[in-house]
Each structure stands twice: as structure tokens, then as C-alpha cells.
């Protein structure tokens, strides 16, 4: 049992060492950004990866369903620009939404602000998920 535990620990450490190479590290972060949870799945953290893969895109879809707006990159209005950066954090779903012309936002909708909150927060949470994947890949966790 102890040997099995040590073997699983060493394989995790090996994955972390492999991830510490700059190219692989960048690929893990890019994958984690584009597909929420992909970085964790890549590094063998299946449970965490699956939760992120389901929860974050679900939040993004709920945000769109609640008439939220995907903000444009207008840095003349700093809060709009920052919200746009936060929205982009979710990765591929953001690009799909743009292609489908979703996320126009309905200001008069009662749920407009809720939608914005879901869209912004899911992007910001994915930034944290990317940082967590980075730490795992560096062998810090």
C-alpha cells in the first residue's frame, strides 16, 4: 500500500516536473484558459478538472440566459474595459458566444445585472483556476 502511495506520489511529481518546462507550462496555462478545467485534467487532477469543466461554462451559459452582456474592450470607460477582460477569462465559450452573436445584453431586463455578474465572475474564477493549474504544474501543490 505504501509502495502504491509512493508510486502515485512520484508519478504526480513527474507530471509536475514535466510541466515545469516552460513550453509545457505555457501549453497547460493556455489549455486551462481555453477550456476551463483542462489544465487540471492534463495534470491528472480529474475530480477538480471535471468540476471546473462543468461549473464554469454553466455559469457562463446562465449569465447569457439572464440577458447579461459580454462587454466590449472600451478602455475609455475603465470599468467596461476591465469587465471585458474578466469576460474573456472563460476562454473558448467567450469565442463561441461572439461567433453566435450572443451576449448583447438587455439593459431593461430584470436579470441584466445578475447576468453580468455571472459572466464576469465565471471569467475571474477561471483565472484562479489557471493559476492553480500553474502552481500544480510547478510542483508547488
Amino acid at each position, binding site marked *: 500500500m505504501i509502495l502504491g502511495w509512493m508510486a502515485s506520489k512520484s508519478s504526480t511529481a513527474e507530471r509536475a516536473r514535466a510541466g515545469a518546462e516552460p513550453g509545457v507550462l505555457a501549453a497547460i496555462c493556455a489549455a486551462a484558459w481555453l477550456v476551463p478545467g483542462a489544465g487540471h485534467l492534463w495534470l491528472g487532477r480529474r*475530480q*477538480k478538472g471535471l468540476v471546473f469543466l462543468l*461549473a464554469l461554462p454553466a455559469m457562463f451559459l446562465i449569465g447569457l440566459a439572464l440577458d447579461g452582456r459580454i462587454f466590449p474592450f472600451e478602455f475609455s470607460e475603465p470599468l467596461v474595459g476591465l469587465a471585458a477582460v474578466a469576460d474573456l477569462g472563460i476562454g473558448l465559450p467567450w469565442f463561441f458566444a461572439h461567433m453566435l452573436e450572443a451576449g448583447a445584453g438587455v439593459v431593461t431586463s430584470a436579470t441584466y445585472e*445578475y447576468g453580468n455578474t455571472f459572466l464576469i465572475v465565471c471569467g475571474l474564477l477561471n483565472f484562479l483556476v489557471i493559476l492553480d493549474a500553474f502552481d500544480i504544474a510547478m510542483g508547488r501543490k
Partner: protein
Amino acid sequence: MTDHFLLMALFAFFVSLVFAVLMRDDVREQVRLGSMMFGAFIAAALVLGWIMLPFPL
């Protein structure tokens, strides 16, 4: 769905879930932290809502 409390609870659920999974490795600890966070979100919303009840004055 325009029920503000339900939407707030849904938001609290997702944020608690992601934070709990991020911050803890053991499933039991994840459930414990997630439940505590969710409860704190709901309690804080109720308390703040109650405090804001008289506004606008």
C-alpha cells in the same frame, strides 16, 4: 426566472463550489468548506438585505 433570491442562491452555489474545490483536496473537506461558504453567502445576503430594508429613506 427572475426570483432574486433564487438567482443569488444559484450564484452562491457555483462560487462556493469552485472555491471549495480549488482550496481543498479532500472531498469531505471540499463539501464542508463549500457548505460553510454557501451558508455564509446566504446569511450575509439576508443580513445585508435586512439592514437595507429602510432604504431609500
